């Protein structure tokens, strides 16, 4: 079985950030493998342990993002493709999906795994865009999966419950982090990752429409601040009753 996992480098949302004149200022050194993609890599590794096959990760990014491929290789993926991005364009999900579609056009695979969304933007679009562009059946927001030998059974978290879907190959799955706990690479994995092959392709070589950008970020704003509330400390019985009464009398929400 051949599985491709699309991975992305994202800024760490836990790092401090600042907005200056509408621009977002972040620590350029605090970038991580998108948590949802780490779950996608983990899911592929678990399938491989049971059913064999090959896992290749694909990342579109600038030079700094290359290190994120190493992270996935250290987790256990077999090889990587680094699609080197032009830094003059602000890509959105549509452009990433178009580039990935151009990459996958002449590839053979059983499944493509993506993260369900980017942790920094929460867009959640690329995976299903890519599936549509490639004409693949797809399942988003997967929380569990199993391989039967010729198709995947996927549970997706839906609005009213978990939908159990049989997805033939080739197909595409977007993974939730509710699926698993991604492994932390050990020393052996890290050493091995240095010898694993990573192919580099430039965006121009893909011959895709580089400017398939459909949305533009105009700027960033602070969230409207909440008035700081009050803390109630002391005798549990007293403060519990006091707050209960305030919720009724002062807030009228009981």
């Amino acid at each position: 079985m051949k599985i491709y996992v699309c991975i992305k480098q994202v800024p760490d949302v836990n790092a401090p950030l600042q907005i200056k004149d509408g621009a977002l200022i972040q620590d350029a050194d605090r970038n991580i493998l998108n948590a949802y993609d780490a779950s996608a890599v983990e899911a592929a590794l678990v399938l491989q342990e049971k059913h064999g096959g090959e896992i290749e990760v694909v990342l579109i990014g600038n030079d700094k993002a290359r290190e994120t491929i190493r992270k996935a290789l250290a987790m256990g993926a077999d090889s990587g493709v680094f699609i080197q991005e032009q830094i003059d364009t602000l890509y959105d999900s549509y452009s990433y999906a178009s580039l990935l579609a151009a990459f996958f056009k002449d590839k053979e695979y059983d499944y493509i795994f993506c993260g369900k969304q980017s942790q920094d933007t929460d867009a959640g679009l690329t995976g299903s865009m890519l599936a549509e562009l490639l004409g693949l059946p797809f399942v988003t927001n997967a929380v569990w999966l199993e391989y039967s030998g010729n198709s995947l059974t996927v549970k997706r978290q839906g609005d009213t419950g978990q939908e159990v879907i049989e997805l033939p190959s080739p197909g595409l799955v977007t993974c939730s982090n509710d699926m698993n706990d991604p492994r932390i690479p050990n020393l052996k994995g890290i050493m091995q990752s240095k010898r694993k092959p990573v192919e580099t392709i430039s965006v121009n070589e893909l011959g895709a429409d580089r400017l398939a950008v459909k949305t533009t970020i105009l700027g960033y704003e602070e969230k409207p601040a909440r008035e700081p509330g009050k803390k109630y400390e002391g005798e549990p019985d007293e403060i519990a009753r006091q707050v209960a009464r305030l919720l009724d009398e002062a807030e009228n929400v009981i």
Partner: protein
Amino acid sequence: MSTLLTYISVNDGKIKRSSLEVLSRCNELAEQHNLISAAIIIDKDAAGLAKQLKAYGPSVIYIIEDPVFKNHLNTPLIRALSLAIEKINPNILAFASTEGSKDILGALSANRGAASLSDVSEFELTDTGVKAKRPVMASKIISAVEANDSLVLITVRSGSYDAVEHPADSKIEEIPFTIDDIDLKMILKEIITASGDKIDLSEAETVIAAGRGVKDEEGRKLIDELASVLNAGIGASRALTEAGVYDPSLQIGQTGKVVSPQLYIGIGISGAIQHVAGMANSKVIVAINKDPDAPIFDIADYGIVGDLYKILPPFIEELKKIKSN
């Protein structure tokens, strides 16, 4: 004249309030810009639901009715919406942000070559498209975005707008639809529904959220009792959905659901940004936590510092007293 089309989400045979919120916003924009506000219902009983929708007054209600829409499955829904877009040619197709609409947004956007903006908290029309706001960085900040395209697809967070009744004699128009079994490459085998979660969290007026501090059966009983006194929906942090204590569909936050109730009570929850991302828009936030430095106290209107096992019994008792008066 161009059309603003709202997709009406249906759950368990009922129209979801969050899609009425989106429809109300589109009604308002249509009036301001002299456009047509229309709605589309795609369901096995679409005609019946269309009658109910007249209370929210779009000019036209399009329906697509087929047994295949009994349960959510992305392929037929994308096919139906694509057909509707061809026929109606709207400038905007707006959805409430649900797991169902998030499932198809990207694919539909690629299918139509249309721009898409997901999970917006505000949107308005410009001369050339749509301008919107989206919470980003685990909802720590807001990004202002723009999409200039002849068709823009948008999903809107629940609670972003009020659902406003606006009765009208909407015209109901059916769009003929067929799908072959062969088209359904994937098969929906089963739906596993969580038992007991009767109240839809994303629309609940009161939400009780349990976190890792709720350690045992006794704690869960207290949560249940509080929820029943307040007629509240029960949600949970990832710590407890991951541990299998609560059903994954009850997770509130970046991975889970976004809630915007009048009252949110977080119990034994630290207030990690990924959890806060899903509840920060609650009107009144109460937190019960034994750690006075827990980050949730930074956003709580009422922060009760204490052991939940000691706080909840008198809290519940007092609320019962208030309720019985």
